[in-house]
C-alpha cells in the first residue's frame, strides 16, 4: 500500500474497520439462496448496520458514515481480507439505492433506504424477461393506468434474490405506442402482494438464486413509481452503470481470492501451474491499482462512463480464470463440493450477468474506441 498516500484519518478508518470485523465477522455463512442462509445473512446485515458498516458512504441520516470513496474502497479491502460474508442486501444497496438517491421522492427515501441497510427489506432485481436479456429496450411486461396507481402484467425472469426477498424493482412498458426506449417506467413492488407469483429457479450451483416472477393484475400505487412515468430507460441506464462499474466488485474481493490461491499453490509448490497463479495475483493487483486510479479520478470530479465496461470485462474474466486455476491445482479433488468449487460456479456467472461480456465489448469498441455502431 505504500505507493498510495493515505491520510491519518483514512488509516484510522482502516484500523477501526479491521478491528470491528475481527470482533464481529461470522466468516462464511450458508448460501444466501437458501432459507437458512438468507436468515443468517439478514442477521449479518443487522449486525453490520448496528456497527454502522453497512453503507459507509451514505449520509448519517440513513445509517451511513458519510465516508469518502477512498474510505469505501478501504473498507471493502478490509471486508474481503477478513473473509466476511457476501451481502444479501447488495441489490438494494448497490443497484436500487443510487437510483432512489438520484431520482426518488423524499417519501421513497424515508420508506426504503433505512430498511435496506439492515436486512429488513431485501430487494430482488427484476431486470430480464424471457425475450429480453441484454436488450432491455425490448421489454414486454406492461403497466396500465388505473385509479391511484398502475396494474402490472407479464413476466420477469432470472430475477436474482427473488425467492427469499421482500420487494422487487424493474421496468414495465407503460406506453405501448411509444418507441422501444421510451414508454418504460421504473416500478417498485411487493413480492408478497396479490397477483404476484414467484417461481424459484435452481442455479448452476443447485440453489434457488433466481426466480421467475409472474404479474397478474398486480396493483402498484403511484407512490412506488421511481423517477418519472416514461423515464424508466434513463433511470435504468444509471443502474446498469452502477452494476458494471465500481460499486459492485471491489478489488478487495479479488486480492483476497488471489491470496487464498497462493496458499493453495503452497501446498504443491512444484506445480506446473505456477505461472497461472502469478497471473492471478498480477490481475488482482492490476485491478486494485486501476480502482485506486478510478477513485482518484472520481474524487477529482471526474465520472465513470463506458469505462465501467472495461472494468466489468476485467474482473469477470479475472474471477473466472483465478478459480479455474484453483480447480486445476486441486486436481481430482476439484469436483468435490467446497469453497473453491462454490466460488468457481459463482465466477461462471460473471461474464453473463450485468450485460454479457459481448455487450460490454461492443460498448468499449463503440463508446471508448469510437468504432461505428451497427453491424452485428
Amino acid at each position, binding site marked *: 500500500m*505504500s*505507493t*498510495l*498516500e493515505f491520510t491519518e484519518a483514512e488509516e484510522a478508518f482502516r484500523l477501526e474497520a479491521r478491528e470491528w470485523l475481527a470482533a464481529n465477522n461470522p466468516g462464511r455463512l450458508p448460501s444466501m439462496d437458501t432459507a437458512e442462509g438468507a436468515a443468517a445473512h439478514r442477521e449479518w446485515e443487522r449486525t453490520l448496520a448496528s456497527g454502522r458498516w453497512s453503507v459507509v458512504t451514505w449520509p448519517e441520516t440513513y445509517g451511513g458514515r458519510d465516508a469518502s470513496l477512498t474510505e469505501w474502497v478501504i473498507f471493502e479491502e478490509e471486508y474481503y481480507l477478513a473473509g466476511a460474508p457476501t451481502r444479501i442486501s447488495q441489490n438494494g444497496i448497490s443497484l436500487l439505492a443510487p437510483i432512489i438517491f438520484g431520482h426518488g421522492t423524499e417519501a421513497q427515501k424515508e420508506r426504503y433506504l433505512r430498511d435496506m441497510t439492515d436486512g429488513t427489506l431485501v430487494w430482488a432485481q427484476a431486470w430480464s424477461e424471457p425475450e429480453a436479456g441484454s436488450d432491455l429496450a425490448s421489454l414486454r411486461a406492461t403497466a396500465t393506468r388505473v385509479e391511484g396507481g398502475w396494474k402490472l402484467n407479464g413476466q420477469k425472469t432470472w430475477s436474482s434474490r427473488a425467492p427469499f426477498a421482500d420487494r422487487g424493482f424493474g421496468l414495465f412498458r407503460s406506453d405501448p405506442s411509444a418507441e422501444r426506449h421510451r414508454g418504460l417506467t421504473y416500478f417498485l413492488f411487493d413480492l408478497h402482494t396479490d397477483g404476484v407469483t414467484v417461481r424459484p429457479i435452481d442455479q448452476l450451483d443447485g440453489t434457488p438464486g433466481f426466480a421467475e416472477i409472474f404479474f397478474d393484475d398486480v396493483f402498484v400505487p403511484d407512490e412506488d413509481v421511481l423517477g418519472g412515468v416514461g423515464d424508466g430507460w434513463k433511470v435504468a441506464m444509471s443502474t446498469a452503470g452502477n452494476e458494471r462499474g465500481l460499486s459492485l466488485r471491489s478489488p478487495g474481493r479479488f486480492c483476497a481470492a488471489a491470496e487464498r490461491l*497462493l496458499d493453495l499453490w*503452497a501446498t504443491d*509448490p512444484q506445480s506446473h501451474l*505456477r*505461472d497461472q*497463479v*502469478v*497471473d492471478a*495475483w*498480477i*490481475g488482482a*493487483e*492490476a*485491478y486494485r*491499482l*486501476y480502482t*485506486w*486510479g478510478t*477513485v*482518484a*479520478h472520481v474524487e*477529482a470530479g471526474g465520472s465513470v462512463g463506458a*469505462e465501467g465496461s*472495461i472494468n466489468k*470485462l*476485467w474482473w469477470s474474466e479475472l474471477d473466472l480464470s483465478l478459480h479455474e486455476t484453483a480447480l486445476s491445482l486441486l486436481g481430482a479433488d476439484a469436483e468435490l463440493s467446497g469453497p473453491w468449487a462454490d466460488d468457481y460456479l459463482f465466477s461462471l456467472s460473471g461474464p453473463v450477468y450485468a450485460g454479457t461480456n*459481448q455487450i*460490454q*465489448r*461492443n460498448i*468499449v*469498441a*463503440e463508446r*471508448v*474506441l*469510437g*468504432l*461505428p*455502431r*451497427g*453491424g*452485428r
Partner: protein
Amino acid sequence: MRFGRTPEQHAFSEALDDLLGAADVPAASRAWATGDHSAGLKLWQRLAELGVTGLLVSEENGGLSASAVDLTVAFERLGYHGVPGPWIESVAVAPRLLPGTPEGDLLARLASGEALVSVAPGKRALDADVAERTYALGATLCRAEPGAERTSVDPTRRLFEVTPGEEIATIDPAPALDLGTLACSAQLLGAGLRLLDDSVAYVKQRTQFGRPIGEFQAVKHLLADVRVALDFAAPLVHNAAVELDAGTPTAARAVSAAKVAAGDAAYLASRTALQVHGAIGYTREFDLSLWILKVRALVGAWGTPAEHRARILESLVEAR
C-alpha cells in the same frame, strides 16, 4: 492527485508527442536498421533538448534528477512513436550504474545527449556500434568490446555480442536493472497504445462487404480486449515507478509485474493489429511492422516473462 500523473507530466508527454509526431520517426528507424544513424541521432539531440536524456542524471552533472515516474512518461512516448536507439541503456540504466565509478565522467555528456552508451544485461548489447562505450553488467561492472553482430527479429535493434573486459567497479546491478526493466515496460505500453490506435484508425476506413470492417462485432471484440489489457497494464507500470521512487521493499516485484503485464498487453495489441490489418500488416513496407517486430523483441528483453513471473512468485512466497 494521489494516484496518477501530475499536470507537469501530462505537459511533458504532450511536448514529446508534438516533437515526435512532427518528425518522420519511421524513416529514421528504417535508416537506423541499415546502419545509417544520422536521422536517429538528430532525433536524439532534439529529445535531449527536451530533457529526456538527462532525466535520471543528477543536477550536479547537468541532469534533471527526475523521478522514475517521469522516466515512464518519456519511455511510453518513445515506444508510442517507435524511436530507435539505445534509450533504455543510456537514459534509464547508465545514470544509475555509473555514479561513483571511474566512468562517472561520462554522466554530463549523457545528460546533454552528446554521448550514447550501451549496456549488456546479458550476452548482447544493443546498438553498440553507435555507443561511445559499451558495458557488460553482471555481479561487477565491466567495459566490453562489441564483437559479432547478431540479427534481431526487430531490424532496428542492432545487437552485438559482448565479452566482459576490464572490471570497473563492484556494484549491485539490481537497481539499474530494475530501471531498465521499468523503462522497457513503459516502452512496451506505448508501443501497444500505438498499435491499438493505428488498428482503430484502419478498421474505420477499410471497407469490406460495403461497410467499414470496424462495424463487425468480431473485429470490435478483438480491439476491445486490447483496450482492456492496456488499461490494466498502465497502472502496474505507474505503480512500479512510484515504488522505485519510494524505495519500497516490494519495488522489484512491482517492476516484474509491470513488465509481464505490459509485455502481454503489447503482444496482444501486436497480434490483434496484424489480424485486423490483414496481409498489408504482414509486410515490411507498411510501418505497422516496425511496432509489431519491436514488441516481440522487447517482450523478451530485460528479463523474459518467465523470469519475471518467477521473481514475483519468489517475492510473494517470501512475504508469507
